[in-house]
């Protein structure tokens, strides 16, 4: 699936600009991992999830777990935009007294589970689905996992259990950007045949371009993919999507960009504009 040439619209570029702003102020972050999930998170919060920023613990809300917690920059800009916390908090990313750290925690309104160590979110999401099933609640539980994260055995332990219990209100979204910290996933730990793996664990599987808004929206609008099965949407994405020199470049997993590199990033996400 050619996802590298998928064109990003104004809103997607604006969200990336805010991420670059956060990075620049803090001097740190995982930009490439965030850029690969911007469209997924954007569609979830614009069109799919039921939530109430004024009452983040509203019982009827859908649950969303960012299991690949290092992609949190993408989540933070959306949560701020939706009013879960003041936008000023974005300027204090990783500050001593800031609300927002390098991985999400539950003190942040809208964050269901603290993540960061990989492979935890799926099991916790499954527990939430089992609770909802017992309570006869209608909400869904969405868990966004990474591909590098899927090296963790705990992901596949969760897949076994979700398949066994036929948890069709569980929606796993896999950010398949095919790149992890050291190198491409096919070099470090190949996941292929990925679709067959999930199918064999009892999941209904759909593959989409994770940067194509209409595809993401369509896939997440008709769930479960199959009644009586947990769903997984495998999103083909590009690590670093939106900044040409970041795309598929392992240097950008957890970088310390130079001023020139920030300039280049701003050029790509918003023309010539500089940091606010």
């Amino acid at each position, binding site marked *: 699936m050619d996802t590298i040439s998928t064109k990003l619209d104004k809103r997607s570029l604006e969200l990336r600009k805010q991420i670059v702003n956060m990075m620049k102020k803090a001097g740190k972050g995982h930009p490439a991992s965030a850029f690969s999930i911007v469209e997924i998170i954007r569609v979830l919060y614009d069109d799919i999830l039921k939530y109430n920023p004024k009452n983040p613990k509203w019982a009827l809300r859908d649950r969303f777990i960012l299991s690949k917690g290092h992609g949190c920059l993408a989540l933070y800009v959306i949560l701020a935009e939706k009013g879960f916390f003041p936008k000023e908090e974005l300027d204090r990313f990783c500050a001593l007294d800031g609300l927002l750290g390098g991985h999400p*925690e539950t003190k942040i309104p809208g964050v269901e589970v*603290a993540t960061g160590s990989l492979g935890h979110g799926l099991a916790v999401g499954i527990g939430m689905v089992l609770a909802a099933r017992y309570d006869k609640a209608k909400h869904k539980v969405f868990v966004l996992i990474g591909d590098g994260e899927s090296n963790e055995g*705990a992901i596949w332990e969760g897949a076994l259990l979700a398949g066994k219990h036929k948890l069709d209100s569980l929606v796993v979204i896999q950010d398949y950007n095919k790149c992890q910290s050291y190198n491409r996933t096919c070099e470090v730990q190949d996941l292929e045949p990925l679709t067959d793996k999930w199918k064999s664990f009892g999941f209904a599987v759909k593959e989409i371009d994770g940067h194509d808004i209409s595809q993401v929206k369509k896939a997440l609008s008709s769930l479960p993919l199959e009644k009586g099965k947990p769903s997984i949407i495998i999103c083909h994405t590009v690590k670093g999507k939106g900044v040409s020199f970041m795309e598929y470049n392992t240097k950008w997993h957890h970088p310390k960009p130079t001023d020139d590199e920030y300039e280049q990033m701003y050029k790509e996400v918003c023309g010539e504009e500089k940091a606010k």
Partner: protein
Amino acid sequence: MRKTVLNEVYKLAKQDKRIFFIGSDVGAGTLDEFKKDIPERFFIEGIYEQNLTGVAAGLALEGKIVYFNTIATFITRRNFEQVVLDLGLHHLNVRLIGNGGGLVYAPLGPTHQATDDIAIMRAIPGMTILCPADAEEMKRLVPTTVEHKGPIYIRLGKGGDPIVTNPKEPFIIGKAYPMRQGNDALIISTGICLKMSLEAADELAKQGIKAAVVHVPTVKPLDEKTILSLASKAPVIVSVEEHNIIGGLGSAISELLAEANFSTAKRFKRIGINDVFPEKYGSQDSLMKYLGISQESIIKTIKELGKENGKAKK
């Protein structure tokens, strides 16, 4: 003890819809009544403790109170990060029930001997650690875990352990229980080591040494007030546990005594596993004796410390 704790959980679950049970491939027939009566809150799942700890966390985040049971080593070592992050960091109401605390599984070797469980659970902020001495105490303990806030590790003995606690004494999490009075020495024990501690005190009394015994079923949070009050009067103090001397009850007491900065001369020693992997099998009792956790060892240690203390005073 295992049968008691699980039956108590079942009884509580019948009255409280928040209570869920998860077992990781536990023994056949475990809690059949629970399975029959409340199948929707009864889960026997596979051998994936990391996964089940996360699942328990998810249930607890939704307001459930989860009792999760499997062998002590697998519910503390194997899933340690999930216990720290999913349960500890979120301070969730999950109760980890570890079968075979200490050397119960002596013949099965070091993979099944839980000799560091207290140490690793103690390192988790907000974790409560309960080590009852007998099934009678367990029966009184379980109901107190329902409304307790935050995660709990419950360490089980072998079962069929002699009843040495007082059935009329209400169990309170965080309370230490003085069991014998005496001003010559203080024996501080947890779990099933209470029995040998009481027997050691009885034997010492016959020899003219009056040793107090305090039972510490809650290793964390420690009942500092009771322990310090007793320790302040005792010239000789020993801790007794079926656990590595590093990180368990003995360490907790050492830290407490060191920071108390008593001005009077005192002697203290930890009795437990001396930082080794047990290299033998045998029974729980025989392996404990081999490793120096016994009534004889307590008596010998107290006498030696008493002599040292006599010298120190001079």
